[in-house]
């Protein structure tokens, strides 16, 4: 594993607070963390939630968002050349891992983003008291460390 996704404690608190808000019908919330490179590392600088009215109804126990927020991400990334991480939360106990749906669907988005700006876009997944991240490299998800700069500094996925 090389490189880390580094964020401030305040950014993580903002993300957790946003993702924990109940939605009218969607079981999960999604957001996007815009990042900048720092050598081998990636620094999270700006979290943008998906607006409430951009979730779509589905009979499956998954979260579907409309094309509009995805277009907004692509337009911003095209303009700013930033790296972007898809962010969501699995707020249940057990090993923190991407679902089959996540592994099937999110890489399609990451591949599209890479075609707009070739950068190591990725996924940031939160669980109860922990976090994991993967970046999209050579058409596959590569796990990377999550470092949260706070009191204390959290390395390797805590918080």
């Amino acid at each position, binding site marked *: 594993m090389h490189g880390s996704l580094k964020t*401030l404690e305040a950014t993580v608190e903002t993300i957790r607070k946003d993702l924990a808000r109940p939605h009218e019908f969607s079981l999960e919330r999604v957001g996007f963390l815009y990042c900048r*490179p720092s050598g081998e*590392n990636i*620094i999270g600088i700006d979290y943008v939630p998906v607006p409430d009215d951009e979730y779509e109804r589905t009979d499956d126990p998954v979260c579907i968002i409309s094309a509009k927020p995805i277009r907004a991400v692509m337009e911003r990334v095209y*303009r700013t050349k930033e790296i972007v991480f898809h962010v969501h939360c699995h707020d249940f106990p057990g090993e923190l891992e991407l679902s089959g749906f996540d592994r099937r669907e999110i890489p399609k988005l990451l591949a599209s983003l890479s075609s707009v700006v070739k950068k190591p876009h990725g996924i940031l997944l939160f669980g109860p008291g922990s976090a994991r991240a993967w970046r999209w490299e050579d058409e596959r998800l590569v796990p990377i460390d999550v470092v949260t700069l706070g009191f204390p*500094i959290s390395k390797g996925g805590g918080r």
Partner: protein
Amino acid sequence: MSDRNSRQSFLGAHSDAQIKALVVGIVGLSGGGSHIVQQLRHVGFRRFRLFDPELLEDSNLNRVVIATPGDVGQAKAEIAKAAILAFDPDAEVKAIQGRWQDSPELLRECDVIFGCLDGFSERDQLEVFCRRNLIALIDVGMDVHPGAPPRITGQAILSMPGHQCMRCMGFLNDNVLAKEAAQYGAAGINPQVVWPNGILASTAVGIAVELATGWSQERGPVYMTYDGNRRLVAPHYCIGKMHPCTHFPLREAGDPIFAAL
């Protein structure tokens, strides 16, 4: 918890692992830096990035606590590396006899950097680097001001990204940088003695252990001042009275990106 560290078990059940996980950089390995090396290895830190361009001189022996007269002429970075490995042969130590500015990739690996530098300009540069790369910076320094009697002063500062910086604290400002630039090349010999170095280094190591373990649950920036004449270490009056930092917006962190306007 290892037997060696059983007396520091109050730091938390996972403190051994938390301390071992952090990569610490030490920039400047003379008086302050040598004390920091010595204490960090005892606390259990194992991942070090060491930077100093200088060779040890006889005049350094009054304060470089990890050196002996036989080390004169050796690189300070290598002396520090040897001191760590003598205590912990499995430690991961990368030592650079050179300027930290010339090895940014190695410095970027750090979670916490100790700045043990002379002069405001280099402190300013190191803080900019740390803010840009989201790295905690602990600045340590002492000075002796002429007078009758001379006055010993010093500081240990935590500049934590997301919190107030050394400019917010008033420690760095354009006036002191300009004054230093005007005196460039005429600084003469900078007085240094071992005991203030030790006091300030111990304070700095305490900050690093807090960052690694969170044991005391104290949060936020730290600016400890040292009055060597009165033998007093106290928080600077600015702590608790500062506005949020506007000098280093998070959106400016990271490497420059070139994008069409």
